[in-house]
């Protein structure tokens, strides 16, 4: 496993070797290496241990006629670079808009501590304390480096921990399972409490509309994170005309440097400096600039694309309502750009304890209508695996059309 310095050193040497290549006028090299340790249980049989090491690089190049290409390959040696460079210059396509865009001069570093990965036994114990029918937990570390024309040199090191468990939800006369994933920068910070959602025994599940007709609706952080990201994409896209109105609890800032953020950092994946940007201020949504500072790569195999990175909301100031419908599962089915079907399920809570299941239901709505109904925030903002850091959100009782 490379440390940031040795990865940058290797990448710089490879980048210098491309200067002799006549096929490209300008070249950017990006490399990512990662180690991972995962322990998985299926509910029966022994725990399964998976570990390994990944490494790959990507080339963006401008050829002699000004065309831009991208290619990626596993590996980190001259063979891999030459192959990727050859493919990038023989299959040119504009990979981002603007087509050539790489951050300026200077060296940028953004490093988590290089702590050793825990032993498999520690992960197994973590999992055993939260036993379920099927679950896994993993720890890993990623080191990235970027070298380009103009003196750009950048390295980033991130630790990460992920956990998954299948959670049960009531659907009328049956139980359905939904995966719940949690993520953090360290195992110790992994919110294991979110991997447990007790289904109240005995009483038959309630219908959502019946329950939400008289009680406030509280959307738990994992479900709220899905809602926030979808609303930002729907209401802050550059193509959207005008400014959409949003509810008072929707104060969302894109925070690439958030200490609990899972992606990005002080620079984006094309080397541009990042900065915070307010996307929703509790009154209106702003159309967001998706230019430099917002280019992220899904993996080394993908070109950098304009992407909303870490989205942060402040801690909530309200208390948990004495009695409420708590939405623990939320999924959005987009029928088209402006029509959503929300799939939701959860519990009725009394004094913070679930007393009745609420069966999974479908609610037809529109993004701008739903955004107006988010009127309160409750509890601490929690980091979620989709990059949203959010507290629980309160909706008014009119849930859907």
């Amino acid at each position, binding site marked *: 496993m490379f440390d940031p310095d040795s990865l940058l050193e290797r990448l710089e040497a490879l980048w210098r070797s491309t200067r002799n290549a006549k096929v490209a006028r300008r070249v950017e090299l990006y490399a990512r290496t990662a180690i991972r340790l995962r322990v998985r249980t299926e509910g029966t049989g022994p725990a399964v241990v*998976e570990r390994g090491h990944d490494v790959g690089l990507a080339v963006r190049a401008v050829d002699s006629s000004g065309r831009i290409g991208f290619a*990626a390959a*596993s590996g980190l040696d001259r063979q*891999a670079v030459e192959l990727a460079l050859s493919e990038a210059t023989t299959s040119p396509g504009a990979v981002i808009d603007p087509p050539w865009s790489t951050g300026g001069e200077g060296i940028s570093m953004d490093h988590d501590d290089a702590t050793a990965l825990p032993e498999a036994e520690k992960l197994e114990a973590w999992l055993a304390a939260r036993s379920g029918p099927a679950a896994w937990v993993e720890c890993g570390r990623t080191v990235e480096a970027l070298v380009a024309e103009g003196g750009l040199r950048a390295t980033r090191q991130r630790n990460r921990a992920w956990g998954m468990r299948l959670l049960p939800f009531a659907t009328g006369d049956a139980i359905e399972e939904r995966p719940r994933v949690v993520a953090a920068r360290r195992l110790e910070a992994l919110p294991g409490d979110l991997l447990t959602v007790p289904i109240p025994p005995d009483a038959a599940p309630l219908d959502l509309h019946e329950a939400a007709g008289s009680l406030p609706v509280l959307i738990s952080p994992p479900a709220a994170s899905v809602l926030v990201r979808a609303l930002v994409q729907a209401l802050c896209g550059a193509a959207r005309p005008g400014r959409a109105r949003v509810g008072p609890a929707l104060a969302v800032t894109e925070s690439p440097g958030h200490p609990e953020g899972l992606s990005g950092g002080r620079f984006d994946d094309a080397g541009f400096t990042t900065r915070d940007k307010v996307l929703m201020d509790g009154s209106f949504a702003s159309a967001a600039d998706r230019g430099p500072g917002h280019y992220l790569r899904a993996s080394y195999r993908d070109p950098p694309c304009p992407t909303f990175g870490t989205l942060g909301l402040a801690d909530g100031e309200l208390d948990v309502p004495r009695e409420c419908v708590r939405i623990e599962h939320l999924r959005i089915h987009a029928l088209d750009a402006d029509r959503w079907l929300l799939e939701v399920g959860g519990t009725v809570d009394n004094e913070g304890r679930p007393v009745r299941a609420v069966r999974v239901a*479908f609610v037809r709505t529109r993004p701008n209508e739903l955004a107006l109904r988010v009127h309160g925030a409750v509890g601490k903002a929690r980091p979620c695996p989709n990059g949203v850091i959010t507290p629980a959100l309160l909706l008014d009782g009119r849930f859907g059309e």
Partner: protein
Amino acid sequence: MRPGSEPLDPAWKDALEQASRKLPERDPRARVFYECREDLRIDLRSDSSAIVVPTRLRGTAACRGGSRPGFEFQAWPSPADIAVGGSDIAGPGRAVSDCNETPHPAASTFDPRALVAWLEDLRSRADGRFSLRWVGFRQQIAVAVPGGEVRTDLRQGARVRLELEVPGPSGRTARAVAERVFRPPHTTADLGEVVGSLAERARARLDAREPAPGETILVLGPGVGGILIHELIGHALEADTVLRGASALVAKPGAVAPAEVTVVDDPRRGRGAWRRDDEAVECRATPLIEGGRVAGYLHDLSSAERFRQSATGHGRRASFREPVRPRMGCTFLAPGRLTPEEVLKGTSRGVYIRRMETASTDSLSGSARFIVTDADCIDQGQLGHPLHPFLLELRASTALPSLDRIGSDLEFDTCVGSCLRDGQPMVTSVGAPTFRIGVARVAT
């Protein structure tokens, strides 16, 4: 393109043979998996030039069973790394080779320039907002098994998706989508006809109306219903799901569908076909439902061992980084004797589905949900007006017994997509003739 084999790089062949001799014979699941893969994705929209994303990767995974099962993976290994034997390779912290002894094959399977030119020609034939996505892959695998043997397989495939949006009166727009498995030599002329029918369908959809919510009868067009079979039957009979007691389909004894229903999974056919799975097991056509009853499960080595049954060759992994799971290859409903017109006839009211996508599946409850993106209403056995997109819910316990008319027009891959399970995407194929289901629900 069919599954097959090609010569393995001699250095890798030697290394894998050495590794296989060191694998413990007492562990029947011990393997060293090797893959060399090439992918190409091309996106083309009305208002931009092509986005071309080629990638190459190579990696290995050393797998073990027994009381401490697991695997260790490594990207970009050199043959020397694996020759030491499966149990010793690839732990975190290993250094990366300065220069790999066996680089990626230099020549590409694909010709991006020719493909872009072909797609641009296709785009020039369409009016309205037209977008295309072409995706192709080629994967060579080799698996070392205990005893000095190395088994290989070659998988390759490509598909193209075409989407057209046309403007209508008062600012309205309508979309139509078509997907085709891409088998050379495809010519622009082949797909030119598809572009023409897309435009016709998109214009027809300008008059789409909302579907009536609640219970409905479905008629699924040729090929389309394969998705439903994949979700309600295929996933429920993946053996690891059955093992953990999460399959509603096997929870109740007896028939799950009428006696005319036969469902088979055969990985050797379809758009991403394989001959051997990722554990080097020769695959075979596996009956899932015969005579309306559950007839078998899809196994990898682990589930087969625990069921004390033979592996069926369905053990697959999305890449060397991921664990092997029982996965579907090409799942299809066997054809019946009726003409498509006979299937439709006699349905007084219902919905005729031309295109849909999976929204969610839950084997524990035996339910599945689909986003239906193109459908018509059925009125007195005739197709009526198009319908706006809607969500469709089905429960295996009620939907499958109501499957009462099966056509003879079996088709494959009229709706093309990937299957995502446990975070692992996999190329899969589905097939079905036109058929009718009596119990489904349009969600409100």
